[in-house]
């Protein structure tokens, strides 16, 4: 039986107040989800920083690789027409 050196890693996300989305705040080690939530409450919301917590096993996160960032994000680079500032509008036009 292989012995783990430490509990699994969890990433912690907090909604600081109603109307805002959850934001990544840090990570912690915990044996299971329930303990991860409790520990997240104790370390990341000691001063009422949150009204809702998500904990996600770090191993479950799929990330884009920084090595492929040019090719991966390239398609957006030459499409300036997706931004409103791309368009010429006469100066006298309002509310547009």
């Amino acid at each position: 039986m292989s012995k783990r050196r430490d509990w699994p890693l969890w990433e912690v996300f907090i909604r600081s107040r109603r109307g805002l989305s959850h934001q990544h705040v840090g990570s912690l080690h915990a044996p299971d989800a329930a303990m991860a939530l409790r520990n997240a409450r104790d370390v990341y919301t000691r001063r009422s920083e949150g009204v809702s917590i998500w904990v996600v096993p770090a191993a479950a996160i799929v990330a884009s690789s920084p090595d492929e960032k040019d090719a991966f994000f390239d398609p957006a680079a030459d499409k300036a027409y997706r931004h409103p500032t791309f368009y010429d509008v006469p100066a006298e036009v309002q509310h547009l």
Partner: protein
Amino acid sequence: MDEFQTLVDADERIEPRDAMPEAYRRTLIRQIAQHAHSEIIGMQPEGNWISRAPSLRRKAILMAKVQDEAGHGLYLYGAAETLGVDRAELLDLLHEGKQRYSSIFNYPTLTWADMGAIGWLVDGAAIVNQVPICRCSYGPYARAMVRICKEESFHQRQGFEILHTLSRGTAAQHAMAQDAVDRWWWPSLMMFGPPDDQSPNSAQSMAWRIKRFSNDDLRQKFVDMTVPQAEVLGLTLPDPQIRWNAERGHHDFGDIDWSEFFAVLNGNGPCNAVRLERRRRAHEEGAWVREAATAYADKHRRVSSTAGAA
């Protein structure tokens, strides 16, 4: 690697999976780990006074502060782990004496007034050191420092309040406050590290924007901040050479005894052995809790996967 230095020079942040020089990674791991170790070892000198705090209010405050320091350790170990090390490994290195923590925690806390002097001077010096790290080039370290700095300001204020109260109390209380300041002043100045001309790694850390100000500049800033606060406290800083230098626009102060600093750094401070021994013992005595929690989690995973199959 040129892309790395371009990002750093542009004051952008380096994130965990970016390419980075191996020496940058190693330097950060060592610095963040040492910082994390300092936070958790730093719980001991103050933990020593929780049961003897003079009132329920002071006890609740001191517990909250010591709990914060545990949290700071957690944030920092988490930041170090993004560089590809395990927290368990770093704890081993601490326990084996192969990585350091701040020398300041190798001094004893002899009286209640030490809780005031630590909050005011030690946390105060830590804040001066740490605020610039909020803009450090490595993203996770910088973000951890933002959280930490927010919490530290309460630490410094509660320390100031303790000393302010004692200083205006009975003659014995005032003397106790003065004695604590006398003992903590010089070690606090040493927290900024050796003088610039004896700090060989500083230039590289500045180029990497891990460090933003030199040791001597930060020390000067701390002295300039602290002198007027001492006046408000009605306490004297134990250095007859402290005086305002209008030409420099800073306070002059006396020479630091660096032989004491290096002696403590090399293990010969009053409490080095006790601090490490207690840390090791706490870790060993907590092993059964960690194992039980793991066994419980494993059992529940088995039960729920069996239930799922049925």
